């Protein structure tokens, strides 16, 4: 099957919508009245991570946005920017800007958000253990490695969703035999 690339007009439309949604998303997470929601979400990730660690036999207690090892008193804080919200905004902006039905977009937003935050949970737990092993490795993984991987993951999540959207559209438009 021949592939037809996106036309400049479609790319411009996508780009404009993406920028609008991107800015709107970041303004929404920046305004003070959404702060309790974002902070509450960060606390819930910490609680979930601590529960998962205990479930697997590890030691961790959640104290608001801090996760502490009761044995060593090592603490890691889920700061704003580490909670996966930033990449979620990027994903949401891309999904909303992409030409698809609202039903498909909602499915993409839900599944994509779940995928990103699952990776972020793994990231947070890995940083918790890495921080107890080496502070310098923790800093490197925290600031550079995991953030870079999260960005690539977000692009792949969007790409996978866009592929399924196109696939379902081409099946819907396939001629009946």
């Amino acid at each position, binding site marked *: 099957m021949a*592939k*037809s*690339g*996106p*036309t400049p007009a*479609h*790319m411009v439309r*996508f780009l404009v919508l993406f920028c609008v949604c991107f800015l709107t998303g*970041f*303004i929404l997470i*920046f305004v003070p009245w959404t702060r309790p929601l974002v902070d509450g979400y960060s606390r819930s990730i910490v609680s979930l991570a601590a529960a998962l660690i205990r479930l697997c036999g590890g030691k961790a207690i959640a104290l608001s946005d801090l996760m502490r090892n009761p044995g060593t008193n090592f603490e890691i804080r889920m700061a704003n*920017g580490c909670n996966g919200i*930033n*990449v979620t905004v*990027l994903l949401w902006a891309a999904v909303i800007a992409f*030409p698809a039905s609202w039903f498909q977009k909602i499915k993409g937003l839900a599944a994509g958000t779940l995928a990103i935050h699952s990776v972020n949970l793994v990231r947070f737990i890995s940083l918790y253990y890495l921080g107890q092993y080496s502070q310098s490795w923790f800093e*490197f993984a925290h*600031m*550079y*490695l995991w*953030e*870079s*991987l*999260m*960005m*690539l*993951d977000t*692009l*792949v999540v*969007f*790409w*996978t969703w*866009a*592929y399924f959207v*196109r696939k379902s*559209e*081409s099946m819907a438009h396939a001629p009946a035999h």
Partner: protein
Amino acid sequence: MPASPQLRFLLRGSALVVVMLAAWWLLLLDPLLDGLRVSTGMALQLMPGDGATADAVSDSTGNWILQVPLPGFVQRSEAVQKLFKPDARPVRLPSLKLAVARDVPTLFSLVFPLFWAAALAGPFGPRTWKYLLAGTAIVYLISVGAIIFYAVYMIDRNLSYTSGAANTVINFLEYLNMYVVPYAAPVLTALALNAELRAQIFTELV
């Protein structure tokens, strides 16, 4: 070899991120920071104010000392003048010295390894080298721009120059500058330059 282009991109991209970050951290960071510092000094000279006062040097610990020129309207502002004793006013303050921890330009130089990883993870063609070079130049400019914006933000914070809505806007832009630009800009640049990758993602967009 995985069949899906998405999985292939993810695996190749993740491996490249690790390799590029290692090369960046162990070999390229110092020369990149030197280049960025020199470019930042040149960019500061182009800022409004007395460009001759601009400078960007590195101290023995690797931290940067920026001499940032102040535009005339900032020098004359109450925020600046109230820093001095009333009998000494009006005071001319052509530039401000700003200490920048090495971690800050290091973060902004992350755009290089991340761009190279994202660019090389996509489909490879005869034009790949061309957009690798073009993209490196673009992320270089983004990196210098981010450092300049950081300097402007820090000076604003030190002088308490902006207030109200203007202060909210500058805080918002600095949030994007520190938490979004270093990570998103290189991937978006790779996507913007690599037509084949873009076509794979957006194929049959109609």
